[in-house]
C-alpha cells in the first residue's frame, strides 16, 4: 500500500457490485470502498476537556451506495492499478431517486453526481413515449438545479406516432430544448454532439429508447452492446445496459449511460415545493387565494388551475404534477 499520507483524487467512471473504476491522470484504478464510508460513526458531544473520543454508535448510512458515477473521490493507491476509496468529495450536483428496493426504509440512490446536463431520452415510437415519466425526470433535474435537454430518438419511426409534434410542442412552449435524433439515420447526431461538448451529461430513460444506440452513434468506437426491443405488440425494451458507466467523448466531455428506468420518483422533495419544479407553474405559486397553502387541487381561487383552464399550462403537465404530488 502507498505509505504516503496524501491520497490521490479521481473520478468514478464505472461501478459494478463492490468495485469502482476511478479515472485519474489517464489511469484506471479498480477501487473498493472503505468500510468507513458505509457507516456513520456517532461520537459523543464534543467536549474540549475530554480526552475520550470513543465512538458511541455505528449507524448504517441512508444510501443504497454512497458512491455515485461522477463522484470525485479520494483514494488510497494500493499499487497494481488497485486502490480503496476513503472519501467522497463534496458534490456539485446530484440526480437522485428513491431506491426501488422493497422494504420498510426508502434509501436515496444517487444516479449521477457533478453532472452539467440531464438528457431524458425518449423514443418517438416503439416504445411509445411516457410523457409522465419525462415530467418526473424534468422535475428531478429542476430539483438538482440542472438544465435538461429532451432527446427524442427513433425519429425514423415518428410516422407511427401522429401526436408526437403536438406533445413535443408542450415542452418547447415551457422552454425546454428538444432535440429530434435518429441513431439509425444519423439525423440530429451532430447537434447532439454540440450539445454534449465539454459537459458531463447523463442520459436517462426507460428501456429500449435507444440510449446506448445513441452513444454508439455519437462515438462508434465504443461498440456498446445494444438489442432490439421485444417483438410483437408489447414494444417494450429489454434491459440491455445493466450498469452505470461514464464514457469520455472524443470531442470533449463525458456522458453517463444508465440502465433503463421504468420508475422514477422524486427524492427529498416536499409537496409544497413541487410546483416550483414545474417552470410554467412556478410563476403562479403564492398567488392563489390560499397563498402558499394551496394544494392546487380543489381549492377555490387557485391560480394554477385557472392557468390550466386558460390554456397557459398543459393539462397533461398539470396531471403529472397532481400524480407526483399524491406520491409525496
Amino acid at each position: 500500500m502507498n505509505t504516503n499520507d496524501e491520497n490521490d483524487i479521481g473520478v468514478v467512471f464505472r461501478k459494478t457490485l463492490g468495485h469502482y473504476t476511478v479515472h485519474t491522470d489517464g489511469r484506471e484504478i479498480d477501487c473498493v470502498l472503505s468500510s468507513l464510508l458505509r457507516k456513520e460513526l456517532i461520537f459523543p458531544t464534543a467536549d474540549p476537556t475530554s480526552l475520550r473520543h470513543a465512538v458511541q454508535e455505528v449507524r448504517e448510512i441512508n444510501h443504497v451506495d454512497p458512491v455515485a458515477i461522477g463522484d470525485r473521490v479520494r483514494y488510497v493507491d494500493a499499487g497494481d492499478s488497485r486502490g480503496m476509496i476513503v472519501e467522497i468529495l463534496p458534490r456539485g450536483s446530484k440526480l437522485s431517486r428513491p431506491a426501488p428496493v422493497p422494504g420498510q426504509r426508502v434509501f436515496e440512490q444517487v444516479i449521477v453526481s457533478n453532472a452539467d446536463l440531464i438528457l431524458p431520452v425518449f423514443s418517438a415510437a416503439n416504445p411509445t413515449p411516457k410523457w409522465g415519466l419525462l415530467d418526473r425526470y424534468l422535475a428531478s433535474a429542476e430539483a438538482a438545479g440542472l438544465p435538461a435537454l429532451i432527446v427524442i430518438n427513433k425519429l425514423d419511426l415518428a410516422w407511427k406516432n401522429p401526436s408526437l409534434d403536438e406533445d413535443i410542442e408542450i415542452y418547447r412552449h415551457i422552454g425546454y430544448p428538444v432535440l429530434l435524433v435518429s441513431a439509425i439515420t444519423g439525423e440530429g447526431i451532430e447537434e447532439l454532439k454540440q450539445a454534449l461538448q465539454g459537459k458531463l451529461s447523463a442520459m436517462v430513460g426507460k428501456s429500449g429508447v435507444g440510449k446506448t444506440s445513441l452513444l454508439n452513434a455519437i462515438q462508434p468506437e465504443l461498440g456498446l452492446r445494444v438489442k432490439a426491443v421485444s417483438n410483437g405488440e408489447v414494444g417494450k425494451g429489454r434491459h440491455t445496459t445493466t450498469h452505470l458507466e461514464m464514457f469520455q467523448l472524443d470531442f470533449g466531455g463525458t456522458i453517463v449511460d444508465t440502465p433503463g428506468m421504468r420508475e422514477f420518483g422524486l427524492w427529498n422533495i416536499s409537496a409544497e415545493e413541487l410546483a416550483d419544479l414545474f417552470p410554467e407553474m412556478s410563476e403562479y405559486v403564492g398567488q392563489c387565494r390560499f397563498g402558499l397553502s394551496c394544494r392546487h387541487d380543489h381549492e377555490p381561487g387557485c391560480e394554477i388551475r385557472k392557468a390550466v383552464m386558460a390554456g397557459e399550462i398543459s393539462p397533461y403537465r398539470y396531471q403529472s404534477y397532481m400524480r407526483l404530488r399524491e406520491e409525496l
Partner: protein
Amino acid sequence: MRARATSSPFGDFRCSNCHAIVSSAHLLSGVNNRNHCPYCLWSSHLDLFAAGDRLSACKALMKPIGLTMKKSRNKYQCEPRGELMLIHECVECKSLSINRIAADDDSEMVMTVFQESLTLGHQIHALYQEHGIVILHLDDKELVHTQLYGRYAKIPVFDWM
C-alpha cells in the same frame, strides 16, 4: 391530443354534492368510467378531452340539467333514436358534457331531472343546440319512460305531465 387518454384507475368515492359513498365497480354501474353519483346524479368536472382522461383542472360540480339521446353505433339497438343520456353542466365554467346513464342510477331521480328540464327556456334549448345537444322535452316523456323502465312498463301519469 395525445393518442391515448392517460386515465388513471380510480376507486370508490364520496359524492361532492350529496356526500354518499359511491362504488365504481363495473358490475354495479355497467359503465367503464363512473361519471356521476347514482343517487343525486351530480358529477364533477374531471374529464377534458375524453371520458376518463381526468385532465380537467376545473374540478367543480356538474349539475344534471336534462336528458338527451345519443345515436349509437349498435345496429341491433331496439331504440332507433339512440341511448338516453344525461346532460351535465359545470356550475363554474359552464361547460357541457353528455354522459351515459349507469345501470344503478336512480330512475326516479332521472325522471326528476327530466321534469326540471321542462322548465328550461327556449333560449337555453337553442344554446345547447349550438353544441349539438337536443334537450328532450315533454313530447319525449314516453321515450324517457321506456328507456328507464322498459317498453312494457305502465307509464304513470305525473301531475307535471
